[in-house]
């Protein structure tokens, strides 16, 4: 790890010398090492094409959906090497939420929350399913808004509500880490504020890693921030320190809007 990387005790996730190439020799993520703090919000920032989303996808091995992908390095999630576990198990431990809310359009709100169980053939008693649905929807402060309409389609909800439903779907598996790829960029300011408040609340029980293009958002809600540039992890520090006294000139220039 370089000198511009903060030291973390008892991390929930350890990334060591991770490199990911979509084409041979062209690394989208290049030799990244970092530890992610438990029960915190960590923001990943950087200009377009810097490798933020690739890094995020590598954590739950979604990048393997691309052909010819080349990966080096290790990722240890709560003490377990992610390459040693089945992807289904990994993706329960590291749930992903995408930029555009994507509730399954043919499913009800109820079924969307427990979709992961159904699609993986995990049988549950009705009462257990009901508990998971209520717990997850309460965790995302959506329960009171939808409890009387659980059997309506997920797409019946507003954009912000749909995104909270997607987060609930990830929470249904009680993950270790929630991965979010620009979760509010498609939402209006009010919905964005609700999601931000939700993420700050969720960190009490989960560890959150979030890609964002919105520096002000990173400043508002993250505890730690990573700055990536051309596949490299340039700087990783407590958000308040990075935003007031960045160590690397490139971080300074990015934060002050000189590029990006």
């Amino acid at each position: 790890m370089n000198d511009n990387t903060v030291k973390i005790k008892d991390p929930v996730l350890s990334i060591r010398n991770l490199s990911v190439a979509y084409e041979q020799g062209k690394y989208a993520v290049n030799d990244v090492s970092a530890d992610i703090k438990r029960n915190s919000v960590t923001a990943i920032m950087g200009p377009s094409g810097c490798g933020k989303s690739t890094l995020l996808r590598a954590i739950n091995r979604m990048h393997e959906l691309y052909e010819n992908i080349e990966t080096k390095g290790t990722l240890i999630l709560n003490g377990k090497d992610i390459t040693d576990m089945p992807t289904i198990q990994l993706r329960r431990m590291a749930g992903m939420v995408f930029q555009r809310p994507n509730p399954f359009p043919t499913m009800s709100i109820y079924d969307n929350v427990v979709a992961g169980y159904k699609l993986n053939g995990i049988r549950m008693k009705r009462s257990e399913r009901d508990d998971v649905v209520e717990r997850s929807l309460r965790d995302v402060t959506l329960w009171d808004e939808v409890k009387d309409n659980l059997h309506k389609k997920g797409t019946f909800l507003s954009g912000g509500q749909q995104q909270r439903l997607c987060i609930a779907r990830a929470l249904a598996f009680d993950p270790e880490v929630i991965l979010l790829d620009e979760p509010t960029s498609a939402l209006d300011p009010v919905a964005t504020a609700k999601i931000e408040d939700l993420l700050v609340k969720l960190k009490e029980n989960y560890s959150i890693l979030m890609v964002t293009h919105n520096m002000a958002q990173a400043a508002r809600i993250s505890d730690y921030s990573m700055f990536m540039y051309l596949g490299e992890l340039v700087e990783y520090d407590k958000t308040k320190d990075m935003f007031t006294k960045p160590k690397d000139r490139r971080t300074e220039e990015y934060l002050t809007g000189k590029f990006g």
Partner: protein
Amino acid sequence: MTLRKDDAIKSIMSDFEDFANMVLHQLDLLENFVSSGELSFPKSLTKELVDNENKLDKLEVKISDKIINTITLYQPVASEIRKIFACYRIIISLERVGDMVINIHNFIEKIKTPKVYLELSEVISNMLVQSANMVNKALLAYTNDDRDYAIWTIKNDSVIDELNRKMLKKAIKKSTNTSEDKQLMTSFINLNSMLTTIERIADQATNIAEAAIYSIEGKDVRHKNDVK
């Protein structure tokens, strides 16, 4: 957004430069008068000092407003927020220096026994020159990101404190050797207040230097005795 933010910051720095130069000019006017050994300010000089002080007060408010607006509208970060925040701290210190110039003018005007003042005026002038020099160097530290000037200023504060202590001792010694003349006592009290005020100018210079270090490095060295 970046252009508007850059323009806003440039505007603050431009006003700050005017403000700092005006305070240095006030110190210059006072220094020149004190070194002349005169006791009575020409009316024109008093008017100039007071008019400038009024301008300084207005400019302080203007710069403060610009700083608050820039932070609110453009959310500067990193070196930009440190520069602006240090500027805010410095204009408060400079405004106090401006007040002190007027206070020293008033103390001199109240001295009724020239003999005592004249005996000490050279040293008073020397102290004033040193304090003004500290303010100047501290400002240079900020505007030029010069750490060395900032450290020099912080370390030099103890020199002024020592000078003040010696001067006070001297003044007290003089007072016990003379008769209990009411005017004389009043003069000594005014001299004492003047020396303390000059020392306070040096203290404000130290505050400016500390703000400069924050701007350059992001380190808060206030209340630390071992700044290197």
